[in-house]
């Protein structure tokens, strides 16, 4: 049964990839890439990797689609056809692919319990994370405790991405109120007419934010954590921006505040590491935060997940603001 599902999903995945290659309309390409992410997320679920599936669904299907849509709002909606058929590039790609496939010949079979990756630290994570970290969700204990340093790196990558987008694109070209309204793609008249949409979105925004908080604070016990929660929280804000305009959203939280919050999240994460060092442990070794190591782990994970969540949220909203404020420039 699972084999049938796997084969079906992989077939769809291949078809979607081919369709993305063939279609010139960028709007369709973006929608298809959203579908591609959703199929990936389903595949992750069949592999029992629920946390990864959650992230893929939230980031790939949700926020990436919206960000890409706001990008084509500022650019063109048709792909310019390639001037020539790059035969040489095709050859290079095929050769590289063949080499990569050849390289996987020596790799252990998929899911082989004797594979080196399952022999190294994985047994310790599976058997002792309950006693050492105390989190019900092993993924959370690996992500934020055993591999806390890697996650710090990921958070800094996201922060840097936000900085670069704001640095490169910025928030120019929208001094006047009307400009900002147009920038969000919505005139006041249109907003009034979409009464049903406005009411439903008003109903949903609190629920979305509440769900984001649930995902944030429930990450110890089930799938979820800072990354997913930040993205979901940001999508609530983006919902609001789409319906009520960029100006109204920026009055809720200004880009300047957002950039402070983004920095604050990274600072909180790094600060926990410094605090553990000052209290006599290693960097990001939460055992020393409290008298009881398990309580210390719990507090440490809570704090760094909070840092991740705030950074991801504010960077996503910042990028969206930056992209959609460009739209005003074209008109």
């Amino acid at each position: 049964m699972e084999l049938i599902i796997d084969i079906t999903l992989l077939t769809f995945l291949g078809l979607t990839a081919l369709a993305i290659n063939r279609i010139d309309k960028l709007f369709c390409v973006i929608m298809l890439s959203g579908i591609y992410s959703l199929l990936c997320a389903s595949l992750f679920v069949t592999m029992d990797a629920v946390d990864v599936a959650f992230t893929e669904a939230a980031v790939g299907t949700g926020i990436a689609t919206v960000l890409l849509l706001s990008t084509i709002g500022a650019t063109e909606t048709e792909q310019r056809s390639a001037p020539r058929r790059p035969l040489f590039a095709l050859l290079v790609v095929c050769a590289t692919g063949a080499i990569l496939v050849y390289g996987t010949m020596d790799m252990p079979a998929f899911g082989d319990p004797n594979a080196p990756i399952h022999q190294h630290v994985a047994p310790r994570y599976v058997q002792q994370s309950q006693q050492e970290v105390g989190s019900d969700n092993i993924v959370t204990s690996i992500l934020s405790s055993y591999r806390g340093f890697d996650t710090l790196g990921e958070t800094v990558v996201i922060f840097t991405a936000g900085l670069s987008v704001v640095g490169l694109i910025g928030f120019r070209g929208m001094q006047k109120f009307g400009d900002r309204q147009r920038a969000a793609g919505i005139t006041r008249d249109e907003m009034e007419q979409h009464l049903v949409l406005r009411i439903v979105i008003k109903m949903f925004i609190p629920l979305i934010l509440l769900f984001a908080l649930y995902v944030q604070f429930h990450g110890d016990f089930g799938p979820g954590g800072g990354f997913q929660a930040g993205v979901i929280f940001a999508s609530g804000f983006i919902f609001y921006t789409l319906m009520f305009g960029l100006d109204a959203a920026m009055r809720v939280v200004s880009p300047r505040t957002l950039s402070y919050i983004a920095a604050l999240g990274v600072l909180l994460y790094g600060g926990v590491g410094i605090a553990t060092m000052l209290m006599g442990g290693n960097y990001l070794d939460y055992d020393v935060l409290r008298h009881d190591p398990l309580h210390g782990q719990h507090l440490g994970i809570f704090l760094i997940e909070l840092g991740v969540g705030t950074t991801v949220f504010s960077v996503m909203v910042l990028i969206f603001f930056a992209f959609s404020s460009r739209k005003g420039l074209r008109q």
Partner: protein
Amino acid sequence: METFLAWASTLCISIGVFLGITGAVGIFRLPNFFTRLHAASVTDSGCAFLLLFGLMLQSGFTVPTIKLCFILVFFLISSPTAAHALSKTALRSGAQPTPSPREDR
């Protein structure tokens, strides 16, 4: 009671699957935007509703049922809204809900 629930759930899921397939066929076969939107929203609301309801019948009074119930309410509100927004936007950007065949292909 158990067998009744099992049969009811099977019935719900079968009708849901049928609606899903007809919706998918409809998206490809129906002539213009509004009829296709109708097919899509049959999948969105009817099929999803029946599938979730069938699953709720199977799981009894448990936490999964409550979660399914949340998803159900979410679907019941969000998918008609999406269909409404799509059709309204299409109407205002000039698509006419006329029965003329294959007008927007």
